[in-house]
């Protein structure tokens, strides 16, 4: 096996909420990311899926150290990076970049496209000052924007174009790893496919490694090599994309897949769906029990009486990992 570019070992990110009262020592903690192990090889596209609140965005931010993980380790290219000081970590920043969901919020409204793209180039001294303009226009070209728009402000662009600017900004420092947090969810259907094509092309041309966070499984299936399904801060199933779609094991993965509406009325009328009742439980002090037992309204199954089982390979020498609880159960 190749050496992974990024490796997470038992990564946990907990947020402490307000204490119940000043006399009560007990604190409320949101277990946003709760013990995640992952390996991402160079050039791989990893999809992170799950419902809102499952911790997929926090995981993305934790591995970029935009939030400080509570415990666990992140190895980048073999080097442990979570314990580095921010100053030491700064050298890794150019190598890992992020694309955010909402291109209306992630761009400074008072900076022109040129300002936004030239800033990281200037700060990290990627190109000499005299070549800034040339480099910015090259970047705009790469993401399919005409360089003549360089002096325009974000509000003068459409949503799709803004997302292109955000992507150009992420590419400015020539990163190896990009964490894309729902980059197409805020866009229209016809614009979505334009941006997905762009991400796909850039990935190929620049040999990028991608962590693609999304709740839209059809998009993830199209773009990703491997998919990790998250629930309540934990990965419940991990497999190669096609394998996951055609042979899902965990009840949660199954219901996520069957909840995607298929754009064909005839199929929709006849298909059998597994509906997951209710909503995810609150991640505040979740305790140790199996988080699914409450969700599916049943008692714990034979496998998860003592809490959620470990993430294990389904068969030996298999890349399909799963926490083997609630596997057989069908609801509704």
């Amino acid at each position, binding site marked *: 096996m190749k050496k992974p570019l990024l490796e997470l070992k038992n990564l946990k990110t907990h947020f402490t909420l307000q204490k119940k009262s000043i006399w009560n020592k007990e604190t409320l903690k949101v277990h946003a990311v709760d013990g995640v192990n992952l390996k991402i090889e160079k050039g791989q596209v990893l999809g992170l899926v799950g*419902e*809102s609140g499952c911790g997929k965005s926090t995981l993305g931010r934790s591995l970029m150290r935009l939030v400080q993980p509570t415990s666990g380790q992140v190895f980048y290219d073999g080097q442990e990076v979570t314990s580095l000081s921010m100053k030491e970590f700064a050298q890794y920043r150019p190598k890992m970049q992020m694309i955010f969901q909402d291109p209306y919020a992630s761009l400074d409204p008072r900076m022109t496209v040129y300002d936004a793209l030239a800033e990281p180039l200037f700060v990290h001294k990627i190109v000499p000052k005299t070549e800034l303009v040339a480099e910015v226009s090259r970047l705009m070209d790469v993401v399919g924007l005409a360089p003549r728009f360089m002096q325009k402000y974000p509000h003068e662009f*459409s949503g*799709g174009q803004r997302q292109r600017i955000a992507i150009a900004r992420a590419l400015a420092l020539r990163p190896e790893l990009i964490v894309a947090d729902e980059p197409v969810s805020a866009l*229209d*259907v*016809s*614009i*979505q*496919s*334009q941006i*997905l*094509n762009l991400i*796909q092309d850039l990935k190929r041309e620049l040999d990028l490694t991608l962590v693609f966070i999304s*709740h*839209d*499984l*059809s*998009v993830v*299936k*199209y*773009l*990703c090599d491997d998919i990790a399904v998250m629930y309540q801060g934990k990965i419940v199933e991990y497999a190669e*994309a*096609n394998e996951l779609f055609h042979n899902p094991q965990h009840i949660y993965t199954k*219901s*996520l897949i*069957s*909840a*995607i*509406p*298929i*754009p*064909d*009325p*005839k*199929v*929709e009328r006849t298909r059998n*769906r597994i*509906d*997951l*009742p209710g*909503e995810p439980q609150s991640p505040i002090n979740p305790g140790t029990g199996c988080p699914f037992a409450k969700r599916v309204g049943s008692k714990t199954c034979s496998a998860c009486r003592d809490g959620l089982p470990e993430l294990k390979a389904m068969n030996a020498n298999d890349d399909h990992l799963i926490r083997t609880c609630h596997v057989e159960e069908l609801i509704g």
Partner: protein
Amino acid sequence: MALLEVNDLRTYFYTRSGVFKAVDGISFDVSKGETLGIVGESGSGKSVSSYSLMGLVPSPPGKVVSGTALFDGQDLLKMNSSQLQKIRGKRMSMIFQDPMTCLNPFLKIGFQLIEPLLIHDKLSKKEAMKKAEQALEDVGITDVKKRLNAYPHEFSGGMRQRVMIAMALITEPELLIADEPTTALDVTVQAQILDLINDLQKRKNTAVIFITHDLGVIARVADKVNVMYAGQILESGSADAVFDQPTHAYTRALLKSIPSRFEKGETLYSIEGLPPNLSKELPGCRFQYRCTQKQKDHCWKDARFPEYADLGQGHQVQSCACTAEYLKEAQK
């Protein structure tokens, strides 16, 4: 006879930068127990058309310039506000996209739920509360007595949308307009909400207008579909007809660009460019600027717009040069 018959509806917005023809001559009808799906990109006028029916277009700058909308024989567009108020919230009601901005954060759910009953049905508060309990139970909320005394922030997104639905249905309206009711929700919760609307519709024989940009959702809920683009309906017909025999170049392109229809790594089919600026004169076919099957001059010289070709069984398509060409090809 149809419950609602809309004819040549035009809603324009008079702004400093020109007249935006948000809805420009649309006609459709909905019968009892039927679901009409309206699909289109943002800015296609799908929301504005329903706001026009409800008398919710902000005026100024908006104005319904022409058209009729016969609801059970009465023209909604000619009513004054007190006449409209008697119908709105009683015989027709609406569910909005974002349940957080549509509920008053200062008022208890119970109070907000019974408001239409107090106004329209002149029930006493006690009777109304009883009905509210039933309404919440109908949408699958448990522990209703406690829930009625809770504030909106104590509910999760899916729960809030359920409350919105309960509120819209509490007076047993004949027509329900749902404007992207599931766009802000997770797929699993979306599946629950769609089932819920479907169930309630069957039980009460409500007519539903369902607005969304998601073709999958349309396939799941709609009996009839209107495809809107740049303020006009380009194609309409039964869901089966529109999905199986899409005829307008835009409908075909839209169906072609769905990511789930592609294998991993394939280049997605995407509609290049952006929708046209609605404040300009747009002679001929509105899709011509992005259409790949453009028949040179015919697209804008054609003065017949908007004229529809009937393909049988209510399947209608805007007859531009390329649909004519496509139909000729199909006949061969």
